[in-house]
């Protein structure tokens, strides 16, 4: 029976060659549209996935651009605390760096850095968990810097915290001293840092020995307007954080900082973060637009083809009814109809997908096109859908074929 159905279908296709050829061509054009849209959607979705992966775990560097001289800091401690409270899932490895030059014996000049750091900075950058450090009274310093803070070494150039300044000239140096402002200087070893050198952007490769870590809150009393540009807030959302939430979060943080900064400061994210921030919205919008276009194209092409296929079969209902009256099984007639529409559609689908694939490769470079055999196979397979839709729409009618009435209506 299968052989009969195939032979009969092929015979009908040959008899209605022109109709089927045109239908196959229309299917080819339709599948080309679908394939082009699906490929665009696939390409933009792949880009979107990549940028999402890139966003996961990224550290956002927020830099300060001073619009006009101001005697208030770009981000004071209270504002920083509010950010921490508003975004509990985010980490703020925030530090302000002051470079100082000192001498130990009057001949050799050494460079040291005072790092006013947050708790998150210690945890993220130095692998040291010291909750409460940022507003506490403990400071950690490497050998040379400890000597400077305790007043054993002489400051050549730079700005010392007021608390330590009294002893920095060498006159008031006290061994193991608790400084005048209540800042206890502890040896760096007591911090229990997981590393001996920094790997953090502009402190890259600086040994901990040349650093003094001071609580973030202790910086603000000594803020000077010319130091505004040294503020660099880093923000990191947890590795498991949602990318959309991370983007919305950093945007909101920037918004809040701008509000607090008034017209004195403008904040910009580092170039890598900037690329992600602007690219993410663009790629997401592109991916969703491509998805919508692909969906609309798919729906319209399938409806258009299904309508043509249905008109094609509606005119053959009488012939089917007569065959049925003469003893042909309805299942066989239905199978014959399905095959008759499926073969030209499939041919058209394959042709359309292949031609479109070639055109995309040859002509389209923007956006970067990524073609997938799975998408191509899916588009070609979709060519069968209109015929199936039309056949399914006609199936209920097949059960109620009334040949005598049809012929009578014809005579009338």
């Amino acid at each position, binding site marked *: 029976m299968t052989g009969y159905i195939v032979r009969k279908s092929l015979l009908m296709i040959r008899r209605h060659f022109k109709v089927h050829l045109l239908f196959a061509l229309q299917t080819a054009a339709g599948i080309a549209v679908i394939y082009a849209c699906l490929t665009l959607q696939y390409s933009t979705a792949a880009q979107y996935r990549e940028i999402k992966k890139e966003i996961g775990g990224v550290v956002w560097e927020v830099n300060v651009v001073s619009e006009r001289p101001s005697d208030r800091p770009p981000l004071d401690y209270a504002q920083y605390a509010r950010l921490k409270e508003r975004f509990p899932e985010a980490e703020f490895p925030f530090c302000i760096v002051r470079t100082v030059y000192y001498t130990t014996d009057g001949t050799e000049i050494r460079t040291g850095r005072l790092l006013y750091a947050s708790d998150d900075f210690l945890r993220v950058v130095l692998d040291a968990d010291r909750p409460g450090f940022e507003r506490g009274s403990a400071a950690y310093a490497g050998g040379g810097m400890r000597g400077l803070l305790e007043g054993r070494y002489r400051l050549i150039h730079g700005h010392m915290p007021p608390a330590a300044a009294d002893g920095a000239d060498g006159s008031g140096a006290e061994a193991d001293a608790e400084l005048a402002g209540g800042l206890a200087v502890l040896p760096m070893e007591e911090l229990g840092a997981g590393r001996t050198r920094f790997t953090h952007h502009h402190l890259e490769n600086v040994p901990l020995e040349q650093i003094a870590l001071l609580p973030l809150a202790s910086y603000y009393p000594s803020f000077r307007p010319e130091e505004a540009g040294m503020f660099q807030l880093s923000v990191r959302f947890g590795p498991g954080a949602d990318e959309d939430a991370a983007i919305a979060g950093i945007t909101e943080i920037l918004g809040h900082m701008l509000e607090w900064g008034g017209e004195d400061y403008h904040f910009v994210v580092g170039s890598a973060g900037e690329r992600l921030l602007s690219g993410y919205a663009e790629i997401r919008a592109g991916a969703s637009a491509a998805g*919508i276009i692909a969906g609309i194209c798919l729906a319209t092409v399938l409806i258009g083809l299904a309508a043509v296929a249905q008109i094609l079969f509606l005119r053959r209902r009488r012939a089917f009814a007569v065959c049925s009256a003469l003893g042909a099984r309805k299942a066989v007639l239905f199978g014959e109809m399905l095959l008759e529409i499926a073969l030209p559609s499939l041919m058209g689908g394959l042709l359309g997908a292949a031609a479109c694939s070639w055109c995309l490769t040859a002509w389209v470079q923007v956006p970067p096109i990524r073609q997938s055999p799975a998408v191509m196979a899916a588009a070609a397979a979709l060519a069968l859908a209109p015929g199936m839709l039309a056949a399914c729409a006609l199936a209920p009618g097949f059960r109620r074929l009334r040949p005598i009435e049809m012929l009578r209506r014809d005579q009338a």
Partner: protein
Amino acid sequence: MTASPSFLLMSILQNLRAGKRTTALLILGFAVGWLLPAALLASARHELFALRDRTMPDARRIIRLEELPGLSPPSVRDVARRSEAEMFAILRDLDPGVESVSFRSEYRGILSDGRSYRFVQIQSVDPAYTELFRQYFRSGGITGEGRACVVGTGLSAELWGGSGIGRNIRAGAVFCTVTGETGVQDRRVMIVETEEGSYRGWTQFFVKVKENADTDRILGKIRQAAGNDWKVERMDEVERREWSNTLAAYAAAILISLATLLFALLNIGNIMGLMVRERRKQHGIRLALGARPRTIRAELAGELIVVTTASLLLVFAVLLAVRPLAERHVFAMRLDPAVMLSVFAFNLLICCAAGLVLTRRLRKPDIVRLVREVE
């Protein structure tokens, strides 16, 4: 004897009523076939207008200087480079043939309207910059007493679902009032700088020359003055390059449009072919009974006009209904009478061509063949 118009109309309506299901499918098929080409045509028209607006009519008299990227990030000023303010002063006093110098500085920052924050591209421009374009403003302009800014139409639609004129916003560190909308840079915010020296980020200068003949001479002088930190080009060359880049960027859209148009043409051809084939026997009998081929052709043409007009009206109704949503999420469209008339005219042309091809057999000697062919 020629059939009267009322007879033809009655006959057409009767035919359509007799095959309601087929008529519905015909209308649906036609509408679906035209939906995408019509949408793409409307979008292409919008893009065409946008392109026209963003061209500079005096491009041959304009020289563009573009800041080349330095080693430091855009937010940090490189002290070794000549500053924008210095460059502006040099360009202004460079030659008596210089008519005007305008600038555009671009950077990224937060746009806040008091309710939400958005990371956008911000441009600082001087009022003369807006006058370089054929039509910079879609609506509004640089008016009002406070700091004025202009928002791109796309950004405005996305943020506020329509016009943003009159809103107080903050773009980066600048508070301003939206006084105009532009299609030239439709996803950006432009801050109109009234003071000299308000440069932020990456800067471009546009030097307008008084006479065409002086352009190359002044170009040479500017190249000498600008050194290696600035890329200096004639604006007409830039526009030509941008045009070919735009074409490359739209290659995918053009490919989809062509495939869609082909689909629509084949759809119309197939539907008309099936419509005519279905009636062949009827036409043969009517011809045998004395009907004139012209009457049958007129009847077919009338039916087609009714069906396609209904389909196209459906298409435009759908497009008008989904336009706000489409403009917000997919692409902008310009559904003006020109687009509608073009679609109608194109459809009529295709229908006429297809009708002539499909009814060429309606001749007296082929009557028996016509009747037999259906069987």
